[in-house]
């Protein structure tokens, strides 16, 4: 697989939120507005990129028995650095809104998942590209989700009121249950598009491969080959 493909797979084919279904906690919790979603996504991108690079470099010498603690230390270091950077340079309102979810990037499944499933088995360049692609895919979904939720609840996008007549907030999309509903609709839409494309090209619908989904077989139930 070329380096470019390592980058683009995170955007659509192996999108961390919509295909791998990882990192659902920040996805649902912080996307009540588009700006929060984007801030969270960018912070995670920085951590993913940094940890993927470092882990692909040290993977050769880390003893197998303690690889998970070592990866966690690397990830936690990057998370603390981004937290310090946000406190000094990001707008205060953004840092306050993301709050506890910044330290929680440490236990974000995407970051550890990519370290274990990809960076520890691949070279520096492809790992860096993988981290960047996954991070940007995550950012795009979070921003999009934040835009939908913000628009449906207040009629504004990126804190700018688009529908000026909209004066009363609609609270369902801005709350956690609304987030679940909207993510579900997005997932269904994503699956439908992929399925349609497969049918159009007369291909078998193949669920994403090599994702390390050892316990989950949901993807395999959907099968358009009904013979």
């Amino acid at each position, binding site marked *: 697989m070329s380096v470019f493909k390592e980058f683009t797979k995170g955007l659509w084919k192996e999108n961390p939120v919509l295909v791998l279904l990882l990192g659902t906690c920040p996805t649902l919790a912080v996307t009540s507005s588009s700006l929060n979603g984007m801030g969270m996504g960018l912070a995670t991108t920085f951590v993913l990129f940094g940890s993927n690079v470092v882990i692909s470099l040290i993977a050769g010498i*880390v*003893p197998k028995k303690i690889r998970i603690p070592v990866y966690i230390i690397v990830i936690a270091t990057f998370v603390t650095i981004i937290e310090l950077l946000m406190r000094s340079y990001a707008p205060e309102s953004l840092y306050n809104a993301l709050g506890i979810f910044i330290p929680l990037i440490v236990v974000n499944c995407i970051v550890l998942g990519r370290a274990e499933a990809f960076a520890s088995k691949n070279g520096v360049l492809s790992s860096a590209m993988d981290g960047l692609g996954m991070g940007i895919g995550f950012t795009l979904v979070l921003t999009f989700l934040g835009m939908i939720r913000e628009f449906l609840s207040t009629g504004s996008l990126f804190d700018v*009121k688009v529908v000026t007549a909209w004066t009363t907030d609609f*609270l369902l999309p801005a709350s956690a249950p609304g987030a679940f509903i909207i993510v579900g609709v997005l997932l269904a839409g994503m699956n439908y598009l992929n399925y349609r494309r497969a049918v159009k090209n007369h291909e078998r619908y193949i669920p994403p491969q090599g994702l390390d989904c050892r316990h989950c077989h949901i993807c395999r139930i959907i099968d358009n080959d009904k013979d």
Partner: protein
Amino acid sequence: MLNKLKEMKNTEKAWYLGAFLAAVGLLAAAALSAANLLTAKPIAEAQKKSLNTALRQVLPEFDNDIGNDVLEVTAEDGSPVKFFIGRKNGKVTGVAVETSDMNGYSGEIASLCGILPDGSINLMLITRQNETPGLGSNVCQRKEQKTIFNVFKPSDSGIPGNVYLDQFKGLTAAYAGKKRSEEDSLTSPWLVKKDGGDMIYMTGATITSRAVARLAEKSVKTFEANRAKLLEDKK
């Protein structure tokens, strides 16, 4: 050296695993202390700047080094209260009271309340809150609404209003409430209307409104209790 490390990859020797983890931890600690050293100054500056912006909003003009002109006391309910004293040419122009209330709808609500020398509230700001977006947050935020028609227009100076916070403007510790009728039993004017008080509240965000009213009351009352110490002129 590198080859030796690679050979040890499958080892189960506890001393080696421990030493490896310790080495990784040390490296991480070194990286973090470097990051901390580099960001310590910008963080302090950012905090000072945001405090200064808030103080300029709640107080009338002042020209002293307000960050160091503070008085810390304990309020009646045991919570810490911090006063920032604004002076112009040595004369007190206003005092900003920083305090917090633990009983918001989701935890702590902190406020900064500007009080004029006569003991009346000039402007109230909520500096920290974690209330429900769209409900409780509307009680706390002074937010200028941008619309597509004025995105690029520079925002006009002045602090955006908030009907729940602006109701405290001009109230003093001696505020007795509006007498509505003879049989009106006003328990305390500082309670929200639902509890028999005088303060308007937001339907659906009563707990937040109560906390905000408590904060305003605490701010003026603690100011009154420490009035003599706060209003001393200083060269």
